[in-house]
């Protein structure tokens, strides 16, 4: 008759040491227990209401027990609502998962982060009855604006008057803001005001309703203005600023933005004047692409793969122009050393073979083309060098293992380097046009001297290495802890060996230029 079963009462009685509780007693206790429970709950709900909450917590029950002058139940306080689990095999039996806690674990565990202190922040919920579109307010307007923007873009492929739909969903201020920004981007992208506008784009909250319009604006202008270098640069800057803005959720619009951004990276022709430094634009866009991948790569896991595929296709297609190749290399390089190692290095050799004729004065008479080829060569060099530099940099500066690795790799170098290098060096020296590329020229000649000396010191270093590895063995014997380290070292050796191999191939392909990317401590080992 009561929701508390007779058996429950008996079990509870037994748990406190009353074994001979009569049935009658249990039966008459049960309803009373239920009544008391209800009473406590009623008081607990009052406590909950007066704590301005809608979820009942253990604190409220303790409060209710206090109200009835009953000792509260200790040990159940918790900040939030409790997590109940359903007992297997029972439909409506729940329990709190109360794990055994190892005291040692608790003591040894690092201290948890101190909870943040209470703060009060202030914002306008409404101004004269109208809610401003700021991130602190519930996004009423945003929900309405976003789908509108989407449908609008899908419907209208042709450039039409953008202002028309804007009027319906945007406040007058936002509309004005949009007009102003687009005007600045189109006409006065070199003014100081435009810089201010970019800062505003990067920091202002409440711009969210404008994102679809900006996305469309960028896509539209990029497709129309491929010949206008400064416009393209301004547009990319706008995209960059939008990406910087922490108050904007740009993810849904990325798929519309990416094509225009990639266009600015690998398009055949950007700008129509020779003075236009489209290389700079490509570099900037590469950085932009990399930042997008870094920020949204985990949300859209296909983003980076699709991007690299596009870029690699552009790179490996011999029919594409050199400018496109350059963009692709820069884009890939910006994505990080891993991408470089995985995608560029394996293709380095065949590509260089393609590039070689373009580099030579004898074969490529067009100076412009040759310049472009050298540019590409520089980009390749940089990408490969950066990849290898990152690789080497992560090694702990332990003298013995890396020395060992280099010693090993050098064995092969000994055979490979002299003739190969000479093959490469000769055109380098023959080529006075090389001097035009200030970055490459001096380094190339400088390093060539270095590498010559490296060959001579080779025998010496290998002797040194033999000595150091012996030392190493002794050290392992000395200290038990070193054992663990040796495992790591083994791994590093292996990695190092790999990189050693890559280094060698790189060296073969690119010649001395690559040496400038090897960090100085490594270099000194090398020597």
């Amino acid at each position, binding site marked *: 008759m009561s929701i508390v079963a007779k058996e429950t009462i008996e079990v509870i009685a037994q748990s406190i040491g009353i074994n001979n509780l009569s049935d009658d007693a249990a039966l008459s206790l049960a309803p009373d227990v239920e009544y008391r429970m209800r009473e406590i709950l009623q008081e607990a709900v009052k406590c909950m209401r007066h704590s301005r909450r809608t979820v009942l917590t253990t604190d409220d029950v303790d409060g209710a027990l206090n109200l009835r002058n009953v000792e509260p139940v200790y040990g159940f306080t918790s900040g939030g609502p409790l997590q109940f689990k359903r007992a297997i095999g029972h439909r409506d039996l729940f329990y709190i998962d109360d794990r055994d806690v190892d005291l040692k674990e608790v003591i040894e565990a690092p201290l948890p982060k101190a909870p943040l202190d209470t703060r009060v922040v202030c914002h306008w919920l*409404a101004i*004269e*009855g109208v809610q401003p579109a700021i991130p602190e307010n519930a996004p009423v307007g945003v929900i309405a604006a976003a789908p509108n923007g989407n449908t609008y873009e899908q419907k209208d492929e042709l450039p039409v008057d953008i202002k028309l739909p804007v009027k319906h969903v945007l406040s007058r201020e936002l509309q004005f803001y949009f007009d102003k920004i687009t005007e600045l981007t189109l006409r006065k992208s070199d003014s100081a005001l435009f810089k201010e506008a970019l800062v505003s784009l990067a920091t202002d909250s409440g711009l969210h309703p404008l994102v679809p319009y900006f996305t469309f604006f960028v896509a539209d202008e990029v497709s129309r203005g491929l010949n206008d270098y400064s416009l393209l640069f301004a547009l990319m800057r706008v995209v960059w600023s939008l990406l910087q803005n922490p108050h904007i959720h740009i993810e849904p619009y990325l798929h519309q933005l990416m094509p225009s951004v990639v266009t600015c990276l690998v398009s055949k022709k950007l700008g129509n004047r020779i003075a236009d430094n489209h290389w700079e634009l490509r570099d900037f866009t590469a950085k932009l692409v990399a930042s997008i991948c870094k920020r949204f790569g985990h949300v859209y896991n296909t983003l980076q793969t699709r991007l690299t595929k596009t870029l690699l296709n552009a790179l490996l297609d011999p029919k594409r122009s050199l400018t496109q190749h350059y963009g692709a290399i820069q884009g890939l390089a910006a994505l990080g050393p891993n991408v470089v190692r995985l995608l560029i290095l394996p293709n380095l050799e065949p590509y260089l073979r393609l590039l070689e004729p373009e580099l030579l004065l004898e074969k490529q008479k067009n100076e412009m083309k040759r310049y472009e080829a050298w540019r590409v060569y520089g980009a390749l060099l940089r990408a490969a060098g950066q990849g290898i530099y990152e690789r080497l940099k992560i090694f702990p500066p332990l003298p013995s293992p890396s020395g060992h690795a280099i010693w090993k790799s050098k064995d092969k170098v000994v055979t490979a380097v002299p003739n190969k290098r000479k093959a490469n060096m000769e055109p380098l020296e023959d080529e006075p046009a090389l001097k035009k590329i200030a970055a490459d020229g001096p380094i190339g000649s400088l390093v060539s001297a270095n590498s010559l000396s490296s060959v001579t010191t080779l025998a010496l270093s290998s002797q040194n290495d033999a000595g150091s590895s012996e030392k190493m063995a002794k050290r392992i014997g000395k200290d038990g802890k070193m054992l663990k380290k040796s495992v790591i070292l083994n791994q590093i050796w292996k990695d190092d060996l790999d990189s050693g191999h890559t280094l060698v191939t790189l060296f073969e392909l690119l010649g001395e230029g690559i040496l400038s990317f090897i960090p100085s401590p490594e270099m000194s080992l090398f020597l």
Partner: protein
Amino acid sequence: MENMQAVNNFVAAYLKKKGFKEAERLLEDLQNKDSAPIDFHNDPELAKFIHRFSQSEDDVARYQDGYSKLRSWTYSSLDLYKHELLRVLYPVFIHSFMDMVAKGHLQEARTFFNTFREDHELMHSRDLQKLEGVLSQSHLEEMEFARSLRQSKVNIKICQYSYDLLLQYLHKTQSTAMLGVINEHINFQVSSGQPSSLSDDAEVVTLIGSFQDAANQINQKEIHWGLLEDSLEERMEKAGSLLSDSEKTEEENKEGDVDETKKRSVESGKQGASTKKLKKEKGLNATAKSARTEASTTPAAPRVKSKLPLPLMSTEVEQSILEDLRNRVQLSSVLLPSVSFYTFLNTHNGLNCSSISQDGSLVAGGFSDSSLKVWDMAKMGQQGGSSILQAENDSTSSEHVVGQNGGKRSYTLFQGHSGPVHSATFSPLGDFILSSSADTTIRLWSTKLNANLVCYKGHNYPVWDVQFSPAGHYFASASHDRTARIWSMDRIQPLRIMAGHLSDVDCVQWHANCNYIATGSSDKTVRLWDVQNGECIRIFIGHRSMILSLAMSPDGRYMASGDEDGMIMMWDISSGRCITPLMGHTSCVWTLAFSCEGSLLASGSADCAVKLWDVTTSAKVPRNEEKSGNTIRLRLLKTLATKSTPVYSLQFSRRNLLFAAGALSKNM
């Protein structure tokens, strides 16, 4: 013949004893009408009637049977009268249940309860939850709610024809158990004419018990709801009319105003954007002026004398208030207020209450860890420089207050309570804070000294609410011990104790003229008390759950109350009747506030929204109720949704800027 008489007397006495007044009356009628003595032996009907009575005194099945029959009869009755008859079912149901419990048939009572509870779940779920726990006679005695139900009668308004139908049915079916319950616990107010409309339902269903009569009586008492004589507003109006006569002086004054407001804004700096805000208010000032002059021509609220000795106001304070009044934005249904929202972050579910000072510059939060924290929003903007100053102040403060440790903390921490702080209130001038706690005490803190001044002990149980009077100095508290108390700051003993509620007093609010306080209670009533003699002078019945918030209109004519279910009711204080329920919130209404000139009501709720209601049209409704029945619920002007932040408190500044506060809760 003599035998006959004896039988008649016996029957009459029996009916009297059992309290079946209805049957008794009928019998008397019968006797009087045809004066022919009832032939007991020859009237098989009556014989059977009496026989049944004596025979099955404790037959519980009669209740179940009788109720289910009555129920099916009611459901199949005429549509026109159905809703009136349905009202009868609920009291019959709960009293049948309690009768069965009282007679000890617990098992049957439980099955009976469970069989039919669904019918009443919609309207009375909370009562049913309480009654569900009644499992023995002793519980009936112990439980306040059950006891009050047992002791009292329910008033049900019913039209003549429905009443006749019901009686006919009861007599025809001889369901004596039902007849008994109805006679014992229901008091029919039979009205001639058409059955009342469905919309009145809400008024009738509240089962408060015997005090329905008492309440009616109480509500007859005289009340002077007018505003205080010689209040600043009144003086303002007079002064305003004088000023408008001489344009020159006004202009001079205005220039002075500008300077002064500028100075003030720099000083108090109502959170950063104040200069902008002030300008905006200035712009509106012109329109407000004209509106005000119009308003002054309409009959103003009557003026009353204060029954309390009120504290004197310094001229400086008076000046600044007058200044505010002059710059007040005139709000209406077309001109909504600006709302500034203070969000508490990282409260870890510990914020129990919040309070905002009259000018919005101070925000207080009461926490479940017994602490009271006060933020100075004016200093918020200029954090860097102020820290040194703060540190200097600290050295002088008492040990109760842990001040800002070199500017690390953005608030002043008041420690002293030993239980969760359930309420906090700023004095009208913002120089004092009162906080009430589960440790049964109320503490007075000074925001100037950052110290605890007084600890008021008097309540025996947690103090749920405390409120300063509009004039300051006096304050009222409400507690779990079912009393509300009036205190003055200079005495540690309460001045008045208001006892009468049947359950916790959950909230308290002062009337604009300081002569009355209103209290809302878990017994679902709101009461109005005379501060002078401590008497209850109004009972407002109509809510269906615990009352959480109260607000008084600035003209003293209306009161709004909000409950646990999200219902807000607007009451006419003089008549004690509900003008209209305001429906829209879906969860607890934590706070209510009238705008300064009384045209808008703002409500804040656990459903993360601030709603603005038009008071002026809702007050007009009773006049043209008959004409436009359906427009009653069209007065919600605006819903301002917050970002998962339940709204804990609302406060209109004197210039009609609305401040709201709440704690961001992520698991909502």
